[in-house]
């Protein structure tokens, strides 16, 4: 495994905490892998501009782990972001949904109910999400959930034909895994209970699943203990979480993204893992920042690079250089620019 060197370190960056399996040991991330984690972190740390979004294209000798490590940086750096701030924008998102949208409500750390979004209301200057859990003929159990907790209400991934007769709730086994070595207990609870779509990855689904769910990683906790887990512990990919846990990211197959629901939230960042993913779906999230990982061995590498260059020449707006070329490991080639949203 190559030694990590060269790239400036960020304090408490996940690149310093994450370890990768080598033989029977866990070693620090190699330089290129750390770069992708930091790239995700830095992208989210940029001052958000309502009118602009950042496009970062990276040419790499292999796509392996590039996108997922970048996503780890994105989710990781926002893991302890105040939920309240985002709850308001989530509340506004819920306001746009039609009455009757099936939702889940995370009542506490271990209990989740399925229900029916009725409305978003303001009473005495306070805003609430109204969710009904029983049909009228069975009592019509309805909750008014304060806007500050609206993050607990999420669009259900699966459809229910009608409201359930009884309240559906179940105990969820919470597995913090790697996150228990990254966040302190208080923030960990918030992280595990709340969903927010930080990023989407579009690419080769089985390869991404292998990297996210089956490759062992570990983190060195502040106490010095080595905690093992999978990147899914950090990414909490919605479709891999089985619908019972909170999520922070989503994964789409580049060849089957038609399944994407039109009511899906806009992620902070869309990561296109490979040329085909980018060429087919580059317009899917026009307001999100965009990371394009281009594998040099890909048959459509030149087409995708030409499209990136076309965007740069024809549509970029002036902006600072990001990341600084000197930070880029020697195996990678990188270009960043900004587009109008």
């Amino acid at each position: 495994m190559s030694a990590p060197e060269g790239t400036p370190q960020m304090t408490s960056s996940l690149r310093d905490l994450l370890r990768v399996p080598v033989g029977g040991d866990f070693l620090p991330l190699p330089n290129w892998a750390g770069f992708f984690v930091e790239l995700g972190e830095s992208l989210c740390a940029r001052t958000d501009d309502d009118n602009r979004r950042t496009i970062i294209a990276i040419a790499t000798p292999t796509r392996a782990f590039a996108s997922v490590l970048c996503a780890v940086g994105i989710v990781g750096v926002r893991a302890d972001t105040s939920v309240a701030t985002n709850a308001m924008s989530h509340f506004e998102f819920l306001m746009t949904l039609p009455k009757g949208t099936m939702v889940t409500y995370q009542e506490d750390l271990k209990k989740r109910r399925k229900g029916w979004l009725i409305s978003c209301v303001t009473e005495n200057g306070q805003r609430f999400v109204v969710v009904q859990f029983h049909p009228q003929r069975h009592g019509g159990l309805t909750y008014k959930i304060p806007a500050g907790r609206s993050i607990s209400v999420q669009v259900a991934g699966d459809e229910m034909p009608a409201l359930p007769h009884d309240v559906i709730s179940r105990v969820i086994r919470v597995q913090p895994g790697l996150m228990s070595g990254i966040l302190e207990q208080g923030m960990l609870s918030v992280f595990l209970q709340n969903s927010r779509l930080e990023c989407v990855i579009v690419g080769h689904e089985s390869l991404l699943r292998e990297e996210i769910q089956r490759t062992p990683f570990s983190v060195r906790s502040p106490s010095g203990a080595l905690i093992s887990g999978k990147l899914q512990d950090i990414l909490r990919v919605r479709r891999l979480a089985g619908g019972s846990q909170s999520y922070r990211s989503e994964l789409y197959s580049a060849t089957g993204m038609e399944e994407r629901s039109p009511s899906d939230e806009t992620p902070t960042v869309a990561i296109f893992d490979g040329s085909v993913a980018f060429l087919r779906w580059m317009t899917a999230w026009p307001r999100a920042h965009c990371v394009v990982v281009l594998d040099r061995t890909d048959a459509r590498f030149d087409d995708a690079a030409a499209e990136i260059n076309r965007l740069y020449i024809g549509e970029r707006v002036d902006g600072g250089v990001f990341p600084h070329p000197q930070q880029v490991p020697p195996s990678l080639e990188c270009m960043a620019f900004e587009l109008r949203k």
Partner: protein
Amino acid sequence: MNAITIGEADRRHVLCANTRIRYQPVDHQLFRRFSERSRRFLRALSDNDSHEYWQDFSRTIGRYRFKLTAAPLSFSDGAATVGMKTERLRSFLSQSAAIYPELALVAREVGELLLELAACDDNPMMERLVSIMDVEPDLSTVVMLRDSSLVDKVRHALRSRHMGFEVVSIGAHRCVHEFSRLILMGPTRWFPEHLFSAPQVPKIEVISYRWNRSRWRPHSTFVSRDSARPPSGGEDAAEEGDGDVEELWPEVDWQALAQRYTSGFDEPSGHESHEPVEAQLVSLQGAHGVFLEAHASALVIDFDEDEESRVKRVEAREIEPGMCLLLRTIGGGDYVVPVANRLLGARAATLRQAQELWKQLLRNRVRDSSLLQVSVRLIELGSQRANEGNVRNWMSQRSIRPQDQRDFSAIMKLIGREQDIDSYWNMMGDIQAAHQRSGQAIRRRLLERVRATDVSTLVKTGRMDFSLPEAEGGRLTAFRVEGKSPHLDLVPASRCGQQFPFSE
């Protein structure tokens, strides 16, 4: 596409900065003169309007030059000297002197050099290859050629010298990471850029004639001046300058090829159907070609897909280079039909007769008028999609029935079989269902075979046989697709799916 470990990913990142590229220039005075004179001749020809007259000659010298620049073959090797035979060459050149005296002067010199070389057993590229191998004989090595038609020949030549290296064509780039050394025969620009910009071996040797521009020069992927630089690898410090001849690998003239091969199809034999269908010409690993009915689907193995979906059906027009096309190589023709017929059992003959009958009657209508007139008449009779392409498709043996019953009803009315619309529609539905079941059964069985087989042979050689039970298609052969024509050709339906020797 297979998942790789983070350790393997790290290895590939490290190789970007550490791979050593060594250039191994070779020389041969006579071949140098031949190459220089033949380029001069082709330059002179480009200013002249006599291309057609010189076509065979220029193809012969061009093929000879490129094949010997791209493979360690002796100058007398028959694989390179195909084309005009000695006597014909001499008589052609003497006859040309009277017709095109200026060009003939240069051509004669080129021709004489060609004949002199063809009698010479020198093989400078092989000599250099042997000397490289002598230095580190135990290093696992793969030799890569630009021209897949020469792979077997070179493999045999190496075996006869007791050199057991793997020999592959550029289509086998996926297997390169299994080796420690890659030897490329010919200038770097003939090979995929990523072999150098994303190397998968620590050592690359480039054996090329000294006069050719051979060095790989990294270039930026992105246009921004602020973008980080591209990886440059560990190129040898140049002790001497690069050659100054910069030639691209000749592009395939698909139009000429299609014309050449379809002209041999004019006389169908026996009961074969002569009906023309739109077909996609595809070139396959090892100098094979095949026409595929453009609107029909073909079975392929696609290594870019997950293991589960690697064996799939795609429309012929969507086949891409790098996929492996499955063709029935024993039994001939379409593998779906015989299996579907077995599934239909005793009814197969009756159903097939009915299928052939309405198609033949439709063909007769077209023959007696025209495609356009039949299309117009069908629309008048209620067809929804009777354009010329669809009518041609409906006449084809490969299509079973139109998708929309209104189109089928219009056809049956046109051919005077209005009373049979429902019964024929149902019979064609039975055939269609049998075809679907047949395709699924073959695909399923093939997927099992692919899973149970070491497909690395297919990745390396670009060809592999798969034996299925006779009831499920018999023997199928997977051929790697090397290229495809950018346009469709009209070809007798009976010739589709049949491979033929293919020479550019």
